[in-house]
């Protein structure tokens, strides 16, 4: 199986940057727990499968950049996506 690192790395990087921005407001009534991210990952895999690989790509039967971005979002959220502090909320 051929692996093309280009879309995987760039997709993961962009997803990671987006994931680090997920910072929930603790004063809000809205709570997004782990189930939201599990549902998102499952939906992302289904969408990637139906999108198919980009033209000329023969690496996998799904859009590898799309999956890399979804994984990057979750990694970014887990590593840096902490809840907002009171000072950040004031800003």
């Amino acid at each position: 199986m051929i692996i093309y690192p280009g879309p995987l790395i760039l997709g993961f990087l962009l997803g990671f940057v987006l994931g680090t921005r997920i910072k929930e407001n603790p004063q809000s009534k809205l709570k997004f727990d782990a189930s939201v991210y599990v549902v998102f990952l499952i939906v992302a895999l289904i969408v990637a499968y139906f999108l198919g690989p980009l033209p000329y790509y023969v690496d996998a039967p799904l859009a590898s950049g799309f999956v890399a971005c979804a994984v990057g979002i979750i990694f970014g959220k887990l590593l840096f996506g902490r809840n907002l502090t009171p000072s950040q909320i004031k800003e």
Partner: protein
Amino acid sequence: MSTILKIFVFPAAMVIMCLGVLTILGGHITPGGGFQGGSMIAAGFIFCLIVYGLKESPFHLSHDFLAAIESIGALGFVLLGVAGLIFSGFYLYNLGVDLYGIIPTFLKNIFDYPDPIHAGIIPYLNFVVGLKVMVGLSAVVITFLGFREFEENQEEAQE
């Protein structure tokens, strides 16, 4: 906004953002590119901002973050262009493809984009343009929402 929207919009926004990233990544072989993909990612942010509001949005874009990503996008584009100018004499010369055969092979390998097309610096340019457009469009909506809140607060204070 209704509860259904509040439950649905956050995961949907993440899927929209992934589609935007895919549009950026396929910019050199399919319709799309940095601007279109960046707009789609910004649309995901804006979707959340409109439904949840500026304070409760799960995506928090601080001023520092917007400034940093905007600068990285602009600098990345300029630096890729200047690299072409330095090594080949042409601004924005595609060092990863080297159509004129004027640069050393190791430089060509460094700027090569590892996929079946080997499009050189084009995907990297799409990437940095995507970053810049993403924060640019998001900043406009954040500013409008911020002004609106400011006006509302001022009216309340006057009353």
